């Protein structure tokens, strides 16, 4: 009676939590799935569980883990985990699973038994939450960097402004000195304007990300970009070699693609090697269902050991180069990331750099 009593409660708990029970006996070579387990695994009526076909219910990338749990159990160590399983008809789903060693009458471990519960809905929610969290964290990092820029750059202008005014107000300014100070005011207001237009550009990157994408043909974008910097290209004697046969077009925001290519190409020219004419190789290809764009140059390269972490930050310039502003790569990264892509770089000093965009 006691056993029936327990049985009743176990069955109710199993129903309520949606948990199935199973056992595998390696000595008798027998296996058991209770009705709930069968329902979760979607097995046909006549399916006969055996120790051999047990592993077929685990997702391919989880089989090693599952086997380890079984092996541990055979040594007397129970497990409690979340693992990806397969239904009889090969659909992946997540379960919470707990297992214990199975003993025979002589108290020898002969197998494993346990319960599992379908937690697919919850796990999928968790995974999507994790993904959102990642996106939010990266946005947050960019915002933090942005706030830092605003604070730093506006402060440096305002500080110059304040000093200039202080000097203006102090006595003994000759006419010449006053003119110098006035010139200062002009340069400060110019720099201030420039900073603000940079900030504008960044803010608009973020807000345009919601705009509609359309099919962007790489060849066409390159043509437009080349045209817009024809003069620079001729002057630098740059050669551009392109191969878009791997991926001729992708859905993207046309303006971004143009800006991305323009930035890479003008960087390659800006940081060309003094001893050779720039050669820029642009290529698209696809790998494991992802599309890539690479831009390779033979320029002066970047010391990545030193600058890797700062390369894509704003106002970071690494060369004593007059037209280095330190905003191009920052904007490129923002545009790529705004559309859930990533950007990486490889470089050897004195040999050149390769920028790689994963769309």
């Amino acid at each position: 009676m006691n056993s029936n009593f327990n049985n009743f409660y176990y069955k109710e708990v199993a129903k309520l939590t949606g948990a199935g029970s199973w056992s595998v006996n390696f000595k008798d070579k027998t296996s058991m799935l209770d009705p709930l387990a069968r329902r979760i695994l979607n097995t046909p009526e006549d399916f006969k569980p055996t120790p051999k076909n047990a592993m077929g219910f685990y997702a391919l990338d989880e089989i090693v883990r599952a086997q380890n749990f079984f092996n541990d159990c055979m040594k007397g160590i129970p497990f409690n985990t979340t693992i990806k399983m397969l239904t009889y008809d090969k659909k992946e789903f997540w379960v919470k699973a707990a297992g214990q060693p199975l003993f025979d009458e002589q108290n020898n471990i002969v197998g494993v038994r346990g319960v599992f519960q379908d937690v697919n809905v919850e796990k999928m929610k968790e995974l999507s939450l994790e993904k959102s969290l990642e996106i939010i964290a990266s946005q947050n990092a960019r915002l933090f960097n942005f706030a830092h820029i605003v604070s730093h750059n506006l402060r440096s202008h305002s500080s110059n402004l304040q000093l200039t005014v202080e000097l203006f107000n102090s006595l003994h300014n000759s006419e010449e000195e006053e003119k110098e100070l006035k010139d200062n005011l002009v340069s400060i207001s110019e720099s201030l304007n420039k900073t603000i237009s940079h900030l504008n550009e960044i803010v608009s990157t973020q807000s345009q990300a919601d705009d509609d994408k359309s099919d962007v043909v790489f060849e066409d974008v390159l043509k437009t970009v080349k045209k817009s910097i024809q003069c620079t290209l001729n002057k630098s004697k740059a050669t551009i070699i392109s191969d878009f046969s791997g991926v001729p077009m992708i859905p993207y925001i046309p303006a971004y693609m143009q800006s991305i290519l323009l930035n890479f190409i003008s960087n390659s020219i800006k940081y060309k090697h003094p001893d050779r004419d720039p050669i820029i190789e642009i290529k698209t290809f696809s790998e494991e269902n992802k599309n890539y764009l690479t831009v390779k140059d033979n320029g002066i390269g970047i010391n990545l050991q030193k600058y890797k972490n700062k390369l894509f930050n704003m106002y970071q310039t690494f060369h004593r180069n007059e037209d280095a502003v330190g905003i191009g790569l920052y904007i490129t990264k923002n545009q790529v990331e705004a559309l859930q892509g990533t950007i990486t770089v490889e470089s050897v000093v004195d040999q050149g750099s390769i920028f790689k965009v994963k769309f």
Partner: protein
Amino acid sequence: MMPTVSPIKVACIIDDDEIYVHLIKKIIKMKKLSEELLVFSNGQEALTYFEALPEKPTVSEQNTLPQIILLDLNMPVMDGWDFLEKYKNTAFSKNPKSTLYIVSSSIDPYEMEKAKSIDSVTDYLIKPISIEHFQTIFNKTV
């Protein structure tokens, strides 16, 4: 009121902001804060100078060395932090007659905290610094 003799013989400024450097030059000249001013536009240029200094300067050489260094943080080529990392290995950084101030427009608490932990840094000053404050710093160094 105005001092007739400069409190300092040589001052040094490491900063890439040309307008700022220009303003400091004016202030130093006007208030006669230093007789001479060395200007470097990034950490690398300054480091090259400091590394080339003699290990045991003679008395006359001592008089040509900067007594006060104003270091910016955000600069191209070599920033203030990288400069400090290398500067601490120079013989000059042990010179008791010289003080180094970080002068930055960054109000990042992390950077301020980091600055405090570096021995060769006397203080972290936030731009803008008033003319009066400059006078105080220069007079304090004597």
